[in-house]
């Protein structure tokens, strides 16, 4: 599978392989994330990720709004790269075309238009000493976050955890969410959790993953992404595959 077939600035020999059966996959790595508007400069730790490379469709996706970009980090112990969605709700990630009018401005190609149909998504989130809170919703993620709590046509979930003896837990906020599973393994200084969600929503409905500001006033946390992949159907087999993939996706 070709990697980084557009633009310049590819670095190193890191060539991820997408999980079997996945329809969408991104990972955090200088080879796969770029920082400049011209899509030529590989991200380094501390850089905002302006372009993500989806390596199944071989497509670069841009987040045009500067304050909405995740920031690349690198775990000091494991050296794994991750994307930090800090306590600004403008940091978020989505992957369907025509994101909502309030800021999910990734410009996606038609190749992933239908990914939200009977959809499964997995991504890894790392813990920190302050834990994290993360949301995924299919509606107006920006205006109020309400749809993350009371979705009528999709699902929402949140993850909250704390390292260092604080325990961790995950709770699901929508009865519409199905097949929500979680696994974990110890990685460096913290746990790496693989979260999955299936959405029975119509194709082209925007799906966003990121920091949910509506919950800031309750618990202010950050979220970290290690990698994301999506399926057009979801199964426990997918989950196992993704769990293993997340462990190696960023060297």
């Amino acid at each position, binding site marked *: 599978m070709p990697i980084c077939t557009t633009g310049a600035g590819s670095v190193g020999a890191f060539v991820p392989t997408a999980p079997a059966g996945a329809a969408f996959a991104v990972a955090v790595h200088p080879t796969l994330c770029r920082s400049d508007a011209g899509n030529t400069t590989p991200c380094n730790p501390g850089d905002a990720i302006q372009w993500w490379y989806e390596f199944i469709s071989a497509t670069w996706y841009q987040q*045009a709004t500067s304050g909405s970009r995740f920031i690349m980090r690198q775990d000091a112990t494991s050296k794994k790269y991750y994307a930090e969605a800090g306590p600004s709700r403008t940091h978020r990630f989505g992957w369907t075309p025509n994101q909502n009018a309030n800021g999910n401005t990734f410009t996606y190609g038609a190749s992933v238009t239908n990914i939200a149909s009977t959809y499964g998504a997995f991504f890894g989130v790392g813990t920190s000493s302050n834990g994290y809170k993360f949301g995924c919703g299919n509606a107006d993620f920006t205006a109020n976050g309400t749809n993350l709590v009371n979705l009528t046509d999709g699902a929402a979930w949140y993850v909250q955890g704390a390292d260092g003896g604080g325990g961790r837990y995950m709770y699901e906020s929508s009865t519409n969410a199905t097949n929500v599973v979680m696994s974990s393994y110890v990685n460096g200084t913290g746990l790496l959790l693989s979260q999955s969600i299936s959405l029975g929503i119509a194709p082209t409905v925007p799906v966003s993953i990121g920091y949910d500001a509506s919950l800031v006033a309750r618990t202010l946390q950050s979220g970290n992404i290690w990698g994301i992949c999506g399926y057009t159907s979801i199964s426990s087999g997918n989950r196992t595959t993704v769990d293993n993939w997340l462990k190696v996706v960023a060297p």
Partner: protein
Amino acid sequence: MSKPYLGFVIVPASYLPTLQTLAVQLGDGGQAETLNFTEGFCLATAPTVVVAYGGGTGPLDQATVDYLEANVVPNLPAGSYWMRCSNSPYPWQVLKTNYAPTQSLIDAGQTVYFDRAAILADLGVVISNPSTP
């Protein structure tokens, strides 16, 4: 790191258009930059009325910070709050702010980390949530 800072701002609602204009001028996303700082805030006593907007910047280099703190921050209207943090793994350290209580702690040598929930609580504001009854 070439961009060692992150910025956060809250401004009165009436100032949002000006802030958006600045964001377009200073950012690298063109008109998409108008989507920055559009997070609505309400007084805790009136949680359905948006009185202020805010949000975070992307990573900032020293030159941009110097420009902002010399030309933009001093001209923010009354009731605005600006904070510069370290661009380091979360929780970010607050390095400078016009929020006096926090700056006093920094001036006294204390290390202050970003805690927006506490800051908003101190300011008496809450995140806008139109579903709030």
